[in-house]
């Protein structure tokens, strides 16, 4: 009896099955989507940067259940801001250049758009619907997460190109990507062998890659930017 008890205790022993207290979590816990997301996040052990979901102002009509369900429908949005040191952050008060103000509507009016986004300094020329296989496994990214990619060096259409120096103003476009999962490559085998020696060792490695799907490429309206 005691052995069985001990064994069941040993089986249940998992060091971090409980969430840390709320003040230790990387994001504030709120009702609805965020708390469930926090519970989901426990399964990936890395802390992450999560854009706060805009909280609707307390409306006069008391309908808490509907607002919570509406929040649950919203996707969790993650901003990819790990290389923010490369450019100075643009404040909303920065006026747009005159050429951008005149030519951006022409660029937006053309049907197809492409963006050269930069992730960890590497450029990827994408259009809407493309899939990217990142050369690394993004820590903490789960399938279904939405990333907002805000570093782009080029935004263009068929006849117009907006070139950033080095990056395009992030107010001018919106590029979102959905994390579709993690893929890997076939196992690599490297044979290590020294000359005049029979001994060989085989080294195995298998890299993991995060897959993204570009779900949205949108050029902003100049009037909306200037308010």
């Amino acid at each position, binding site marked *: 009896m005691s052995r069985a008890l001990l064994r069941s205790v040993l089986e249940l022993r998992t060091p971090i099955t409980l969430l840390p207290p709320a003040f230790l979590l990387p994001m504030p816990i709120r009702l609805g989507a965020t708390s469930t997301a926090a519970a989901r996040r426990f399964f990936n052990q890395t802390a992450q940067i999560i854009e706060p979901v805009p909280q609707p102002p307390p409306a006069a009509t008391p309908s808490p259940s509907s607002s919570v369900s509406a929040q649950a429908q919203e996707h969790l949005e993650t901003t990819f801001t790990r290389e923010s040191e490369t450019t100075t952050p643009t404040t909303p008060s920065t006026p747009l250049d005159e050429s951008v103000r005149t030519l951006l509507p022409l660029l937006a009016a053309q049907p197809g758009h492409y963006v050269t986004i930069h992730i960890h300094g590497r450029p990827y020329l994408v259009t809407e619907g*493309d899939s990217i296989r990142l050369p690394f496994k993004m820590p903490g990214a789960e399938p279904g997460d939405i990333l907002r990619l805000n570093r782009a060096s080029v935004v263009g259409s068929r006849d117009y190109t907006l070139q950033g120096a080095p990056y395009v103003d992030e107010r001018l476009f919106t590029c979102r990507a959905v994390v579709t999962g993690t893929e890997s490559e076939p196992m690599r085998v490297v044979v290590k062998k020294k000359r005049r020696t029979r001994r060989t060792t085989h080294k195995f490695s298998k890299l993991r890659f995060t897959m993204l799907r570009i779900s949205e490429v949108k050029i902003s309206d100049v009037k909306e930017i200037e308010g």
Partner: protein
Amino acid sequence: MTVKALQTLTTGRNGVGAFILQCKKMDIHYCDWAGSSKGMNGFIKSILPKFAAANPQIEFVVSPRPSKHPVVIGHYINGREKAICVRNLEPLQILKKVELLRDASGEKLRKVNKPVQSVNESVRGVWSPYHGNGMAV
């Protein structure tokens, strides 16, 4: 030569619009008696309820497989399946394997050299020597 109709087939682009997780079902097999299933039994007791609640898109099937090693099998929308033997693993190690099966797309592993895959037409078109102002030689 016969005249053939143009074939245009739509290609699935998961994530544009709706996102659907590719893993649809996970079979989890354990043994009550065997020592290699010890970690699996702990996983089923302590971690699996939370993991299943956090992933409502996946159907979890837990069934005994007496006197065999514990196995996790993921079934995918494209009809393929992936099986991982988790003998002698701790519950948290099994959690990593289960996460791997959840995040996988079900496709066969292959080496890819180009990072971006696209089915769209080129935005700027294909360069032609017969159009435009021509090149000065």
